[in-house]
């Protein structure tokens, strides 16, 4: 029996277990939408296509499933590019479906035509232009398979309008096998034995875990390894939640705004086991001084991550979960000697660094310190909330002062650093986890980049809580200008901003404001207790900086502490 392309699409999506799509209709996808509403797939109508992709991203991270978007051709498609590029940098599995003008018009500069496959080639894991309705079912299945397997990433499928109308039998292969795509899941055993030998002999080992541990859900294996071998753990921004922030072996985050002890340990360690990381420049600082005394073991599923930025002694290509569980098995069979005694000097040294420079800020009884707001938020949510962030100072304070205990609880645009990510991502996360408290830690700059999604949150009763650290500046750039450009605040002062309380109310949400430190807890308690979406506007110290800070390009031990 022949069905049309839009029906094939819906069937293929349902077979992939898609239960929610974030999207925005338009001429080229009108047939797809006509079919979509006949299914039981939920559609979340965002207010801007960029919001759709970030929401799907947040949904993917909070649920562990593939996030799906549907947008129209031309501007609908180009509006998704930032979201796609962010998901690509952070390895988030997405399938983005774009409408395209009818096949016969492609290349003719038709109305709302754009070569989105060409535009997104460098920022997708793979993409397709469906030229024949016969291929549609297979392509959708392939797209999901590619998005979620290996190192995950976004896949875009561009569907011309006529393909949606054309008829074909529903034909989808049982299993996807691509001769040109075979990720390596199982690590090389000989390499793993080298790792166990290094763990046995190392005097000052540390683990550096990243987003790969979160994505592969190998946090339990990571914890087992760290605790069994008594190795302290740091993570990248993307790795927050892979290791509990309350564990005695926790070092805090590494890198530009990492903790003093984490960066000092990096410089002093003799073994670094890097798991699911890519040694981003915000982590390493000057690469030739990074972990210069250490043998580096690098475990990652993507071979291109290995030796791209940092030379390593033992490369291990494999899935983090499989690799870590095999490593734990190997270690169980190894006589490690008296580990506690062997590590005590090293752990003692780290304790010393911890006490020498803890995360701190000067409290003030008249002006709200942004760190204080995040600290209070952390106290009230106790690691149970899903924390989403925008980008800039708000993101770093959230990373420093929220103690993240579990993966999927810290959702941030790590690689691309997209302002305007947090609110739509929070909407997506709330869709995935209706049971959870979802908070977006925002700045007054970033929140305005996708503020229109408040309407989405209100329309679908998604009770996301927005905490604005309102300093009237694009704070992180202002901080750089203060520290490195002799306080020339070129164009970073937002002289005019809306009244966020009234704005929240205009959207039909609740708006609250705190202007004094003693109002912070009250406003947070009141806001978090509301059943619907809330904007909490905290008027904070205007010129507060994020510390510690490693100047760009410096060694990560060259920290500005206050």
């Amino acid at each position, binding site marked *: 029996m022949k069905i049309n392309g839009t029906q094939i699409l819906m069937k293929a999506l349902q077979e992939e277990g898609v239960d929610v799509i974030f999207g925005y209709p338009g001429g080229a996808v009108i047939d797809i939408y006509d079919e979509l509403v006949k299914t039981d797939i939920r559609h979340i109508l965002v207010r801007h296509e960029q919001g759709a992709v970030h929401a799907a991203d947040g949904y993917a991270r909070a649920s562990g499933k593939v996030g799906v978007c549907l947008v129209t051709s031309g501007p609908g498609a180009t509006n998704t590019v930032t979201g796609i590029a962010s998901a690509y940098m952070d390895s988030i599995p997405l399938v983005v479906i774009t409408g395209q003008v009818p096949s016969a018009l492609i290349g003719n500069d038709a109305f709302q035509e754009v070569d989105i496959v060409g535009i997104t*080639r*460098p920022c997708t*894991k793979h993409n397709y*232009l469906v030229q024949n309705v016969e291929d549609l079912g297979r392509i959708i299945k392939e797209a999901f398979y590619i998005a979620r397997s290996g190192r995950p990433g976004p896949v875009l499928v561009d569907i011309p309008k006529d393909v949606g109308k054309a008829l074909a039998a529903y034909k989808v292969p049982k299993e996807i096998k691509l001769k*040109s795509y075979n990720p390596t899941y199982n690590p090389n055993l000989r390499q793993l034995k080298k790792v166990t030998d290094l763990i046995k002999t190392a005097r000052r080992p540390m683990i550096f875990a990243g987003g790969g541990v979160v994505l592969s859900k190998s946090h339990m294996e990571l914890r087992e390894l760290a605790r069994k071998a008594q190795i302290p753990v740091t993570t990248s921004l993307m790795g927050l939640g892979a290791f509990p922030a309350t564990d005695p072996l926790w070092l805090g985050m590494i890198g530009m705004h990492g903790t003093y002890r984490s960066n000092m340990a990096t410089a002093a360690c003799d073994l670094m086991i890097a798991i699911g990381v890519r040694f981003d420049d915000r982590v390493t600082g000057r690469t030739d001084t990074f972990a210069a005394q250490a043998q580096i073991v690098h475990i990652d599923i*993507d*071979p*291109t991550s290995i030796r*791209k930025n940092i030379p390593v002694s033992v490369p291990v290509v494999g899935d983090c979960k499989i690799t870590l569980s095999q490593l734990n098995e190997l270690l169980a069979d190894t006589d490690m000697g008296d580990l506690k005694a062997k590590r005590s000097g090293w752990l003692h040294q780290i304790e010393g660094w911890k006490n020498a420079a803890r995360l701190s800020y000067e409290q003030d009884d008249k002006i709200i310190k942004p760190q204080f707001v995040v600290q209070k938020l952390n106290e009230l949510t106790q690691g149970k909330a899903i924390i989403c962030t925008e980008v800039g100072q708000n993101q770093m304070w959230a990373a420093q002062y929220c103690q993240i205990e579990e993966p999927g609880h810290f959702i941030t645009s790590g690689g691309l650093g997209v302002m305007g990510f947090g609110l739509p991502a929070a909407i997506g996360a709330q869709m995935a986890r209706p049971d959870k408290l979802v908070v977006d830690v925002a700045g007054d700059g970033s929140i305005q980049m996708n503020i229109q999604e408040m309407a989405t949150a209100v329309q679908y009763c998604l009770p996301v809580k927005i905490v604005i650290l309102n300093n009237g500046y694009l704070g992180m750039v202002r901080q750089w200008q203060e520290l490195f450009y002799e306080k020339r605040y070129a164009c970073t002062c937002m002289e005019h901003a809306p009244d966020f309380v009234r704005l929240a109310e205009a959207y039909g949400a609740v708006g609250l404001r705190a202007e004094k430190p003693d109002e912070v807890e009250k406003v947070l308690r009141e806001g978090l207790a509301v059943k619907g979406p809330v904007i909490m506007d905290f008027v904070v110290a205007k010129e507060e900086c994020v510390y510690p800070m490693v100047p760009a390009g410096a060694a990560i031990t060259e920290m500005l502490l206050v």
Partner: protein
Amino acid sequence: MTNEKHVLSILVDNQPGVLSRISGLFSGRGYNIESLCVAETTDPNISRLTVVTKANQPLVEQIKKQLNKLINIIKVHELTGSKYVHRELALIKVNAKTENRAEILRIVDIFRGKIVDVGPDHYTIEVTGDEGKMEAILTLLRPIGIKEIARTGTIALFRDSK
């Protein structure tokens, strides 16, 4: 670390857009392309691309890994060195006046080339060979006057059947 020439032979799905994925990878990541040839193999679904790039050893490793990461790429081989046959074809149009026609013919003969087109004041020479041979014939023809040249870029294969 010195930059050396590396010959990469890449088997890819013969599909629209694949060449663009590869050239986009090179330009996007700042890799160099000295030459690039592409044509179908015996299997019409598979094409072979031969890319010559200049890079140091760690970089060429990274290039190979990045190429392998592209979904439509089936296999990447490095064919640098003496275990492989490298060839290039060039069409060279030279000034051919009565007084130097004999000299040109002698040079073409030495390099086992062919004259494929003749005009009142030109010869077009077809010559194949490795990079060294190409450079040698061009050095000899240059004083006579090269009007135009078209080169295919290097293609390469394993000497042993593999």
